[in-house]
């Protein structure tokens, strides 16, 4: 072996290898990159919009959706059979449009409907449909078609079914056909729904629920259920071009959309792609492979995203709640529950983990929803002196509390760890559990609902009477509630029944005070995931905040445009 090679040492070889890596990295770092957008630190945490460029017609947009929620549609996009339900609202809104849309500041926008009236003590709702609207297959959207849709929705056995309280042909079977009196076609553009109980929240409950999305009966009958679910036909701003389940959807502009004469939708093409999560979406956007990512929730990545993209924090409507199971020890003891309130200080958690991005709340309403009440009279806040006393009196320091949450939410997981540390300062031991959805459901329902002690979940919706609202967590009939109090049930039912907003809000205020007085579970902050978009993208939900109906807002795709040049 030549002398010069004999003198080569291991160290030199490693240096040579490292040098190769460094050269590559240097090339990467010095390169202009694929198409990394220029830095535009732009984040909104209040009810203010991001400055948008002038509207521009044409162009294409790629929207990234995270798997595990909106990025999955394993059964296709027929609202009556898609079990992932409103998680797929982005696709539904794009291809079907909506009867009623929720705009900024809670403004009701008429899309395929033009009005509604309550009557008969809020047990009858009459809806006016927009005349002249056609599906993209050319068939007309009439009251008969809407009636066919709603009948199908009410008969659906999936949990995405409409939850209207209506008379059934077989009262014992909740998915039996609705009675003949339930849905009435009054004219080609007028349809009426008759309920068995008053429901003043009926229109608010339409948002993000399947009766709001109307499919083409003609295409459904022609294509069959399975084929239709893959390439659905609606009257929305876009038409389906291709669909690879839970992977990618390609859409193009619908030339027969009712707002086409006004130049809507702006975009020519809209593509949705599933990505594995926040990290993958962030990198894809940096590489220019997507212009929008909905529902980013990882705090560290939100901070990173602020350096490159527009980050719009929506106004939350579903506060996080620490549910306490009043059916089992230790939380069947009111002093133990009060101790939890007094021991828990959400301010440092918000400050250190979430950078004060979300407002602290004391009830089940959020700043983006109706009847928002940040402070609740009689709410027991953090009080370490009282906490020490109550911990001793209730014996909380002698037991171990089981605290659980869903594993797919980093917000919830980090919060449980922080709470456990806070409680440890008072001598309270905690065992933490994170569950996937399946196991979470089991944890709630096992042993007649007596296997869990405390859970961190969201409670509330844009309208507390809708979606995963307050009843889901506090109604005595819900399997996911830790409260069994008929007085609270009555207050919540009264709130849902009235169609007068001030009356409803008064009842919700009463409910919040009642929950606080009985220490049924402290609330902490109203979280809403952020939508991230590259500079030049604009539209409701992307540069102007929208209220989240249940967890995330419904983006109005017909109003979204992409003007990268800004001119």
């Amino acid at each position, binding site marked *: *072996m030549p002398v010069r*090679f*004999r003198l*080569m*040492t*291991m160290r*030199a*070889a*490693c240096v*040579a*290898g*490292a040098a190769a890596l460094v050269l*590559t*990295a240097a*090339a*990467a*770092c010095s*390169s202009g*990159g*694929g*198409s*990394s957008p220029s830095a535009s630190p732009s984040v909104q945490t209040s009810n203010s919009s991001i400055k948008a460029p002038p509207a521009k017609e044409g162009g294409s947009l790629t929207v*990234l959706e995270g*798997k595990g929620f909106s990025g*999955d549609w*394993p*059964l296709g996009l027929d609202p009556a059979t898609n*079990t*992932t*339900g409103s998680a797929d609202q982005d696709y539904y809104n794009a291809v079907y449009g909506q009867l009623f849309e929720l705009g900024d500041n809670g403004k009701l926008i008429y899309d395929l409907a033009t009005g509604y009236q309550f009557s008969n003590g809020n047990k009858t709702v009459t809806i006016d449909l927009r005349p002249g609207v056609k599906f993209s297959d050319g068939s007309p959207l009439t009251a008969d078609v809407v009636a066919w849709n709603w009948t199908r929705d009410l008969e659906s*056995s*999936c*949990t*995405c079914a409409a939850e209207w309280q209506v008379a059934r042909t077989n009262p014992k*079977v*909740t*998915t039996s056909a609705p009675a003949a009196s339930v849905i009435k076609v009054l004219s080609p553009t007028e349809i009426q729904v008759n309920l068995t109980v008053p429901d003043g929240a009926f229109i608010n409950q339409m948002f993000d629920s399947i009766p709001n999305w109307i499919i083409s009966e003609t295409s459904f009958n022609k294509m069959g259920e399975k084929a239709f679910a893959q390439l659905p036909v609606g009257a929305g701003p876009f038409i389906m071009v291709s669909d*690879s389940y*839970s*992977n990618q959807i390609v859409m193009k502009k619908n030339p027969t959309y009712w707002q086409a004469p006004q130049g809507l939708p702006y975009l020519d093409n809209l593509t949705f*792609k*599933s*990505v*594995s999560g926040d*990290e*993958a979406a962030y*990198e*894809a956007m*940096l*590489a*220019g*492979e*997507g212009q929008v990512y909905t529902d980013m929730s990882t705090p560290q990545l939100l901070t990173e995203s602020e350096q490159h993209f527009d980050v719009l924090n929506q106004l939350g409507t579903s506060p996080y709640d620490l549910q306490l199971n009043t059916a089992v020890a230790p939380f069947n003891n009111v002093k133990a529950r009060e101790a939890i309130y007094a021991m828990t200080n959400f301010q440092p958690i918000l400050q250190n983990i979430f950078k004060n991005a979300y407002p602290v709340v004391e009830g089940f309403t959020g700043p983006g929803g109706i009847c928002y009440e940040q402070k609740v009279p009689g709410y027991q806040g953090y009080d370490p002196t009282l906490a020490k006393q109550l911990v001793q009196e209730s014996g909380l320091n002698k037991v171990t509390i089981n605290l659980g949450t869903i594993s797919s939410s980093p917000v919830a997981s980090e919060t449980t760890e922080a709470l456990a540390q806070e409680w440890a300062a008072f001598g309270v031991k905690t065992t933490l559990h994170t569950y*996937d*959805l*399946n*196991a*979470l*459901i*089991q944890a709630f329902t096992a042993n007649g609902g007596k296997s869990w002690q405390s859970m961190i979940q969201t409670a509330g919706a844009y309208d507390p009477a809708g979606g995963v609202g307050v009843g889901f967590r506090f109604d005595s009939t819900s399997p996911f509630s830790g409260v069994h109090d008929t007085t609270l049930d009555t207050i919540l039912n009264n709130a849902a029944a009235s169609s007068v907003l001030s009356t409803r809000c008064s009842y919700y205020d009463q409910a919040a005070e009642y929950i606080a007085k009985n220490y049924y579970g402290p609330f902490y902050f109203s979280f809403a995931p952020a939508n991230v978009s590259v500079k030049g993208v604009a539209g409701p939900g992307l540069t102007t905040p929208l209220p989240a109906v249940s967890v995330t807002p419904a983006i109005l795709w017909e109003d979204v445009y992409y003007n990268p040049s800004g001119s």
Partner: protein
Amino acid sequence: MALAQQVQLQRDPGARSDIARRVAGSPALQLVGRRLLTAIPVLLGVTFLTFVVMNLIPGNPAQLILGINATPGAIAKLDATLGLNHPFWDRYWLWLDGLLHGNLGISYSNQQSVNSDIAQFLPTTCWLLLYALVVSLFLGVVVAVLAARRPNGIVDRISLAISMLGLSVAPYALALVLIYVFSVRLGWFPTISNSLGNSPLTAIRALTLPAASIGFPLFAVYTRILRADIVEQMQREDYIVTAKAKGVPPWRVLVVHATRNSLFTLITLVALNLGTLIGAAAIIEPIFSLPGIGAELINAININDLPLVEGIVLVFALVTVAGNLLADLMYTVLDPRIRYGRAAS
């Protein structure tokens, strides 16, 4: 076969049956037959264990499919539709019966045939693993030969450093680094590949980073193992001395003689690594949003989709069994002394 012999065969039926006997008695074919027979209980065992484990996972697939708002009535109805209300053994026999008829059942989550699901997703994974395997093997052999040519030389030491890096880094961590460098900064490859596109070039672009994430650790292992084997052959075997003494050029001694005899360990390793490859695919595919069978397996496990999990696991088991059989057959190609069923002369 010579023309005269062919003519003889055409005229002599006895000769044809003799050939048939020789084919049937072929050691290689007998090996294949024996392996296929022993594969049956292996595959049955794998699928049974999978069935047991999936049934032990807490939760009801119907509940999971229908979601948190599902009513007991809806769950019961879906239970009946999916056959979940049958006893364990009934469900397993039913699945086996379907398997014997080539039907892997219906996926709980998307209500599609498992056969069609696998047919849809398997090609992407096959291309990905083939790409990773072929490139890692090719580069591994080339680098190992170059390194073994001069042990402790500069090439050897550099290859050692690179191999150590490959052995130290986890595929998923490597994937993130590759994405950052080659996608985000350089823009050479996509970060996500929801489809392989319509052209070979698009597919190669889409698969390069995922294949590199899987293949780099493999390349590291193959290089070190093969290099060590070759060096041992070159330094200790008499036939190498003989070849050199006969004046065979050094490169020919290295490549044709030493390397060929060193491939046995490598082949065994490749066959044993097939399972690892498949596991790596399950981790790498979701990172790149590749619509492959690995990502589909993860989804299916999360949602307790038993038929889909069983179908995919069966495919994996078949691939592993086939890979091991292929490795055994390769031995006979590489070393004529090895003839299964006959003592070596």
